[in-house]
């Protein structure tokens, strides 16, 4: 994935800084709770939401089961419509394909529609290495790019920034990249939006090449679909001469009738709207209208590996709505950057370690970045059982080196629980030594006693009380009955 996330510390370490950043926590709490409330309201409006959710899940499962067939259908339809299809096995291959395509146009600048896939492969950095500047045009993505920052949310990449921070970024950076911000810029949302509009307008009108992702690909016609709120995406998709779309292979849906289900599920789950303001669809090229040269780069980059895992494959149903981020109590406190990936939050905690593997300390920490509260599963519009996949990935992590002490502790606990008389002996030992237990524990226990008092073991366990009250055969004493 993108190089900007390389060298990030494991989740608990990165989260430590975020938890102690009061401004960040305030920004995150405010934003996630607002979207959370809006989503709940528009979902409650539909009396067939559970059926829609089940339909979304079923369509995705069916498509993934026959992914080879549908991808070939996409390729044939796009080619028949005058487009070109490229297959990229990994990030390097995808970046090389896009770089070569841009080079062939002779252009040094490209405009971009917000795209998770291109962030995943680090396309902007790869283009920069080839001397090509990529300009993000989504407002939040622009804020992140101008601030030399990293996205921290799937839908709202600049969720961690408030408007006074955005004003400072615009004033400081816009001139460097193009149309400068007006000197009298205030932090009023309308004024900030106008500054971004002017800055971007110049960009759209001069760009010859655009790079996009897509939310969906309809196999029956080879049509790509982008849903968005601002219209900037539509500018990118229609104005330039060349359009290059980099799309993960899991984005395919078989038919337009299937798309209808997702166009209900996605906006309500993501922005809390009944329908998103802009839905753009494009199929190959249309002479005299829109880009005359269209390239589709189909990206694998670990996805077929995810597909091969019986438990993990449900992750590929994800439509990147970010509802799971907005309800996640861990994301709300830790922020998106702590996940060290373009995919933060609960979905990132399962998607990233599957795409990248769990070899690094950061990736091995991600399956544990959840209290398994289950709120993410409840809101997921395609019913991905995120807690189930988290536990599945934890099993993979514990099989790696570096878990010797924990494994031994779990074995010891298992040994105690294997025999009630062992459990009873441990309980009595705890009861007898309870006065000796220090208020602050060493080792892993310190994490507990830093903020909480530990419960004092009782003098007598329940089972000892039962034996004392009811006798060894467990029958109630006469006078109790």
């Amino acid at each position, binding site marked *: 994935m993108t190089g900007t996330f390389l060298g990030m510390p494991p989740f608990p370490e990165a989260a430590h800084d975020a938890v102690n950043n009061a401004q960040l926590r305030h920004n995150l709490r405010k934003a996630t709770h607002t979207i959370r409330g809006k989503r709940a309201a528009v979902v409650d409006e539909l009396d067939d939401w559970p059926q829609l959710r089940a339909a979304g899940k079923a369509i995705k499962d069916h498509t993934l089961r026959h992914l080879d067939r549908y991808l070939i259908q996409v390729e044939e339809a796009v080619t028949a419509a005058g487009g070109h299809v490229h297959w990229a096995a990994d990030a390097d291959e995808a970046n090389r394909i896009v770089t070569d395509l841009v080079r062939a146009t002779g252009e040094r600048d490209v405009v971009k529609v917000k795209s998770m896939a291109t962030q995943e492969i680090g396309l902007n950095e790869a283009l920069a290495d080839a001397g090509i500047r990529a300009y993000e045009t989504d407002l939040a993505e622009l804020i992140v790019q101008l601030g030399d920052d990293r996205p921290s949310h799937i839908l709202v990449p600049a969720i961690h920034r408030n408007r006074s921070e955005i004003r400072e970024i615009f004033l400081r950076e816009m001139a460097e990249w193009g149309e400068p911000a007006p000197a009298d810029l205030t932090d009023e949302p309308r004024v900030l939006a106008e500054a971004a509009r002017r800055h971007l307008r110049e960009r759209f009108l001069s760009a010859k090449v655009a790079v996009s992702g897509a939310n969906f690909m309809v196999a029956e016609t080879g049509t790509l679909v982008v849903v968005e709120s601002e219209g900037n995406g539509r500018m990118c998709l229609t104005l330039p001469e060349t359009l290059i779309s980099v799309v993960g292979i899991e984005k395919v849906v078989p038919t337009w009738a299937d798309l209808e289900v997702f166009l209900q599920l996605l906006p309500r789950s993501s922005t809390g709207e009944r329908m998103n303001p802009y839905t753009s669809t494009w199929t190959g090229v249309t002479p005299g209208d829109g880009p005359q040269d269209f390239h589709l780069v189909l990206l694998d980059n670990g996805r077929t590996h995810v597909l091969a895992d019986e438990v993990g494959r449900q992750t590929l149903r994800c439509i990147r709505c970010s509802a799971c981020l907005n309800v996640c*109590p861990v994301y709300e406190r830790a922020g998106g950057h702590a996940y060290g990936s373009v995919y933060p939050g609960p979905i990132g905690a399962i998607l990233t370690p599957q795409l990248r593997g769990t070899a690094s300390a950061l990736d091995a920490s991600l399956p*544990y970045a959840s209290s398994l509260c289950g709120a993410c599963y409840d809101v997921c519009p395609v019913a991905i059982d995120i807690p189930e996949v988290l536990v599945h990935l934890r099993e993979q992590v514990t099989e790696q080196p570096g878990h010797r002490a924990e494994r031994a502790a779990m074995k010891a606990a298992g040994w105690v629980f294997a025999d009630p008389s062992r459990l009873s002996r441990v309980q009595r030992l705890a009861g007898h030594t309870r006065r000796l237990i220090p208020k602050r524990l060493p080792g892993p226990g310190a994490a507990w006693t830093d*903020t909480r008092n530990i419960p004092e073991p009782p003098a007598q366990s329940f*089972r000892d009380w039962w034996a004392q009250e009811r006798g060894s055969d467990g029958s109630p004493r006469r006078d109790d009955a």
Partner: protein
Amino acid sequence: MRVALFITCVNDTLYPRTGQAVVRLLERLGCTVDFPVEQTCCGQMHWNTGYGTQIEPLVRRFADTFAGYDAVVTPSGSCGAMIRDNHPKAAARAEDRALADDVAAVVPTVYDLSEFLVDVLGVTDVGAYFPHKVTYHPTCHSMRLMKLGDRPTTLLRNVRGLELLELPGADECCGFGGTFAVKNPDVSAAMGADKVRNAAGTGAEVLCAADNSCLMHLGGMMDRQRTGVRTLHLAEILASTEELPA
């Protein structure tokens, strides 16, 4: 009706008063209660931390210990959910047909305490007396996995003298999450602090829940902060009477 208690290892070891309250309550309601002493632990800690392959003996022990009862009642939504949702998965993984059959036979007999009271006994007023202000934390696994719904609060509303105060952000996780509290201490503490603030803000004297693990985390935090709010398991409030107050 032959009712067996699955008291859970946490309650057995650290919160025997909860188990005693369950016994008192169920016997008051006319049940014959048994505590099969062969029981130990449901294996949730192993399962959720990534050591699910180690729990086969615990799954087998549970199925053997609780075979043949009309109902198995547990005062923990979290452990109840572990048995219902994951014991069948663990048995399937063991590729032992007999074990899978035993688990399939025992799972439908497992009830959380409030489920058993409301759904099986058909009781919503258990004749309790507890003249205090109480706020109720539904706990994630009780709410989302066991789907206890409003059963616990219905039971609390019928307790004589009890004033039930609504907990803001009730459906948010308290941050315990088993080993999560140890592996991600900062985030866990931040989540707990918000829950504690919300609970203390209600003006309640008691924070109640149907899971002592969550209460251990929150109680430890409230104790450290000297909020003056104490924690009580739902069973202890429901067992409370004028003669034997909780």
